[in-house]
Every structure is written in C-alpha cells, then in structure tokens.
C-alpha cells in the first residue's frame, strides 16, 4: 500500500511548515475581513480563533489517517472504499485543485486589473504566470517547496506595513465583545474557510516528507501562524474601518495600504500588489502540483505530460471569467466546497478509516 518515493526527492520535516502555511495563505487574505464581518461584525475575530482551533483538529485527523495507511489520499480511499470508488474521489480532487489554481490566478489578475492596469489582458498575464508555475513544477516537489519558502520569507515585511494604520485605528470599534449571537459568529467562521483552506494538500504530499512524524509539530505551527496573521490583520482592519465602510471595500487589506504615504513612493499598494505575486506563485504551484500528482497516482501518467495539459485547462478557464460577479461566484464556490471537504468530509473519512482498520484486523485475526 505504501508508496515509495526516492529519498532525494523528499523534503525535510520542517519545510512542511512552509508548504502548509503557504497553501493557506494567499489570495483570501486580501478580502477575508469583509466576508467574515458580514455576519459576525466586529466580533469576527472570535470566528478566526474558532476556525483556527477547527483547523488544528482537522489537521490532527489528517495525520491520523495518513499514519494508519502510511500513504496518501488515494491510499486512504482505496483502503476504505476500494479501487473504483477511490478513482472517482481522485477525479473530484483533481478538479478541486484545478479550481483552486484558477481561483488564485484569476483573483490576482483581477486585482491587478482593478488597482493597477485596467487594460491588462487576463489571457496574457495568466499565460505568463502559468508558464512560471509549470516551470517550477518541472523542478519537482522540492522546487515547489523552495518556492513556498521564498513566498513566505521574502514578502514577510508587508505585515509590518499594516502598522501604518495605527494612527487611524479606533480599537473601540471592537467593543462590546460578543455583541453578536453565537450563530452569527459561527457563520463568520464558515465564511472564513476560503482563507484558511489548502492545508489539506498535506494528504497528497505526505509521502514526500522525510520522517513524517517529526513534521507534525511543524504543520501545526504553520496553521497556528496563519491564524495569528489573520487575527492580526482582522483586528487592525476592524479598528481602521467602521462596519459599514468595511462592507463597501472588496479588498480591505489593500485599501488599508492607501493610507501609507512615503516621500519616495506616493501609493504603496502598487509595490504591495506586485509583491503579492510572490505570495500567490507558490500557491498556484502547489495546487497544480497536487492536481497532477493525483493524475499520476490514478492513471500512472508522467507529471511532465500532465502538468502542461492541466495548465492549459486552467488558462482557458481563467480567460473565460470576465466580471467581478463571476470571479466572486468562483471563489464562493471553492470556499463552500473547501469548507464541506475539510470540516465535514475529512472527519467522517477518519471515522471510516478507523472502522475499516478494525474490520480488516478482525478479518486477519479470525
């Protein structure tokens, strides 16, 4: 059942931190504050903490399943449901990761179009981005991980820049705490899911980890750091915007940068958005890599052949999304699917795995 990956293609356990965090942290961070505040208002920071706790639990469940079968997602499904059903699930996951790639790239292109160049053609820019992505994946999983590393380390300074909003921050906005009902806060948590989504890619790259037991703490640390960053941003945002103004801004994170004025650069968002390219590039790479990896596992087709094909599919899909409404619909859909997948399906899958394990043991025993 276990898949053998050559030692020289595996990654060190601590690098899991970067892959997991990178996958969670991408395009959602630019606009999550508005979406979570829709229901929970200024209490939405509680929703973030709740989601953070939830993600830790799901992550624990993922590790538990992976340890049980010592393989990846396909092995789990084969173990529980058998070969044919696992293929169907596999195809679903291929689509899911393709959709994730499309969302990331299309949203990023949209931001460039709205904030910087109105006349930028979606097709050409996506083509360039996707070619880079394909090039990265050709380097193998280790290169993808390397990109994830740089995608976190290089643009990390941007977080300090949000402190420029402090002179305008009104932390009173957060009071009174728990002014919204529990169900509103839980709805906020649900809306938060697109932002923290992506850690489930662990299910696919697990066999690539050297000494996977040691990687556990790094994965949990990654999830924790994402929660903290979201919390930091959300609190600054809620202090900076009154609730009604927040609801008017599609990308509050970027709007906050509009207050920054430096003698040498008039509008900081331009630098910030350009930098964001570094943040989303590994994101798209990991998603597309996951997709092609599942294809390989299911149909034993070389990744070198599948990656360009999948990239072309993404390119076509990206070019067919024109308006804000369509992009919004797509990200909403991915968010929904991701939510049910992560917080409903995976815990159920864990239960199924444990039952299957018990049944199989009994069979061997008797």
């Amino acid at each position: 059942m276990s898949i053998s990956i050559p030692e020289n293609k595996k990654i060190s356990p601590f690098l899991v931190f970067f892959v997991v965090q990178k996958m969670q942290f991408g395009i959602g961070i630019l606009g999550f504050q508005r979406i979570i505040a829709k229901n929970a208002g200024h209490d939405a920071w509680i929703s973030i903490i709740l989601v953070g706790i939830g993600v830790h639990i799901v992550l624990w469940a993922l590790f538990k399943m992976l340890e049980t079968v010592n393989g990846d997602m396909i092995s789990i499904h084969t173990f529980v449901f058998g070969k044919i059903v696992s293929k169907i699930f596999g195809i679903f996951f291929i689509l899911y990761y393709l959709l994730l790639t499309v969302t990331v790239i299309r949203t990023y292109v949209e931001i460039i179009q709205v904030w910087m160049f109105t006349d930028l053609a979606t097709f050409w820019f996506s083509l360039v981005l996707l070619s880079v992505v394909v090039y990265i994946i050709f380097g193998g999983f280790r290169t993808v991980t390397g990109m994830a590393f740089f995608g976190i380390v290089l643009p990390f300074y941007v977080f300090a820049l949000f402190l420029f909003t402090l002179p305008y921050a009104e932390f009173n906005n957060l009071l009174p705490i728990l002014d919204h009902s529990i169900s509103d806060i839980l709805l906020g948590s649900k809306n938060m899911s697109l932002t923290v989504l992506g850690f489930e890619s662990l299910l696919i790259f697990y066999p690539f980890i050297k000494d996977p037991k040691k990687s556990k703490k790094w994965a949990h640390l990654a999830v924790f750091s994402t929660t903290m960053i979201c919390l930091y941003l959300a609190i600054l945002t809620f202090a900076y915007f009154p609730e009604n103004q927040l609801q008017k801004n599609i990308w509050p994170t970027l709007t906050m940068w509009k207050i920054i004025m430096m003698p040498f650069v008039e509008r900081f968002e331009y630098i910030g958005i350009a930098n964001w390219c570094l943040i989303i590039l590994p994101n798209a790479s990991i998603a597309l890599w996951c997709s092609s990896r599942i294809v390989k596992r299911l149909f034993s087709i070389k990744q070198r052949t599948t990656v360009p094909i999948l990239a072309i599919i993404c390119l076509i899909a990206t070019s067919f999304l024109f308006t804000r409404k369509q992009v919004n619909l797509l990200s909403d859909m991915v968010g929904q699917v991701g939510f049910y997948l992560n917080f409903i399906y995976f815990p159920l899958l864990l239960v199924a795995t444990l039952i299957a394990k018990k049944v199989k043991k009994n069979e061997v025993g008797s």
Partner: protein
Amino acid sequence: MKLVHKIIILTSIAFLLNGCVKKEILDDINLIEAIGFDYAGEGMTSGTILYPIYQPDQPPENKTLTAKALIKKSILQDIQLQSANPIVTGSMEAVLFAKELASKDGVLELIDAFQRDPGVGSGLYLAVVDGEARELMEGNYGVRGNATFISNLLENNIDNEDLPKTNLQKFLFSYYQEGQTPFMPQLKKISDEKIELNGICFFKHGKVVETINPDQMFFFRLLVDKYSNGLHRVQTKDGEAAIRSIRSTHNFDLSQHSPLEITVKIKVQGIVNEYTGNEVRPDQIKLLEKAFTEEIKEQSTKLVEIFKEKQIDPVGFGHFVKTRTRNYDLSKWLESDLQNLTVKVVPHVMITEAGVIE
C-alpha cells in the same frame, strides 16, 4: 533545448509583453493635484482641476481647467475635452468643496468617486471653501504650487495647531460610523497670495449644517482627538497669556446609563508662550490654570449644546455609548437619545513651564 534557443524565446516573450498595458509617461499626462467643486445653479455642479506645469528653474505654474456638468461624475470627462493630455488622478492632494455646494447639494456623491478610485490615497485632504473653490484655486500661493500649499497648510495646522486630524479616511470613517457625523476644515481666500484656515464645517447627511470659528477649534480638538495640541489665549485679571498645549489627552467614561451621561476628562499639559502681565509667579500660574480650566469647561459644553441643537455628533458620543452598551440601538440617536445625553466635561490643566524668562 539549447541555451541559445531559451534566450531567444525569453527575449521574444519580453518584447511581446511590452505592449500589454497602456503606458503613462509623466511628461505626457496632466497629474491633477487638486480638484474643486462649485455650485452652478439648480442641480448643476462645476468642477475645476488644478495641475502644475513644471518648468526649469522656476516655481511650477498653476494651471486650472473648469467644466460644468449635471452628472457629477462626468465633470472629469468634460474637462478632458479641454485638455491636451490625459488627466490622471494619482497624485491628488486636496479636494475642495464650495460652501454653497456643500450646504445645498451635499458632498457625498462627489466623494464616492474618490473612495472608488484605486489611484487616490486615503490621506487626501478634503476641505470646504468659504467662497468659490475655483477662485481659491486660481490664486498663486507659495513656490511649490497651490495644491502643495493647501495640503501643507492643513498638515501644519494638524501637526502643530488646533485643527483636528482630518483627511479622506477620517471623513469616511466618521461618515460610516454609526453614531458619528463627519466634519471638514474650512478655507478662505484672503488675497491672491493668501489662504486662511477659518473654521470647521460639520456635516449631516453629507450637507454642511454648522460652522465653528477658529477660536472654538481648539476646544473641538480637545473633544475629538485622543491626543491634541494647539495654542490658546487665556485672560486673567492680571493680564493675558498664550498657552501652548504640548500634550492633551481626553478620556471618555459612560458614567450613567439612564439617563445617559458621559464624563469627558480632559488633561491639558501646557507651557506659557507669552504673558502680558508683570511676572509669571506660581500663584499667577495657578490663576491661569484655573481660568483655562473654566474656559475649557464652558466652551466644550457650549460646543456640545451646538451639536445637540443641530442634531450632529462629530465627536462620536453615539459610537462611544454603543461600545459600552450591549445591543444598543443607534437608529434614533441624533433625533432623541443625543438630546437627552448629558456631557460632563472635567478638564485638568497643568502648566509645566513658562519659557526661559522668570
């Protein structure tokens, strides 16, 4: 693939991508630095843009273009008809509204455009013009261009004098905040080379409903800004002193729920800049402190009375009450709850230094 091939492909991609977006060369665009709006009769608005023309070894020449329009957003397009180069909003510093326009039509529709435009920063200054915006913009102030002059004038008054913090973000913040109404500074053209900051305008539903004079600005700032500074003259029986407040803080406290009562504690730390009496003795300082305390109390209470009468809340008392009360309903704040609110101002003045002369 050979390295040469790779290089050829990469270079050709670079050339291909070059033509992807519109270029904007600084010499071939009109960078608007300020824009002003005037009332132009029933439903019409006229807009004036100000852009500098840079010349070697000379101060920038201030150029203005004006157009009238019915739909406010189309003003820029109409101005475009007179302009040889495309108009770009990227480095705008100030937006001015004529008082007539701001009181009759309101400013909300106009401000929406700036809030929407990703190229416009949130640090943009908004101001009401006592008189005509166009006239003010056609003057010639300072060597760095009119727009820079206006924004420096406001910035200086915020940093060192009595003007409360204000810009586009501050305006939007108080506009969107429930239980708070916005305000803007008011400018007036005195002569062709001079502008004066001559008060603060308060808005309700986007329209100016009340203006206070510069003397009251000091007290308004004490109420609205967490940290403030400024200069104020205090009169005692022995003489007059100019007291510069170095660091003033305020603290709100919801001291009573029904009926609502807010206690505002104001702490002023100041130095004596000027004194017309004979000597600044400790007992004189005591007297000054007392006089100043009395004046802050009296003036602030007066301001609150004005707010109540005009049904505005630029300080944000309503928002404050909401943050201290669970499930507070602000929908009738300005009409009824604000009227029943008691605001108790408790100032505490401390004069620490009296300059280098004893």
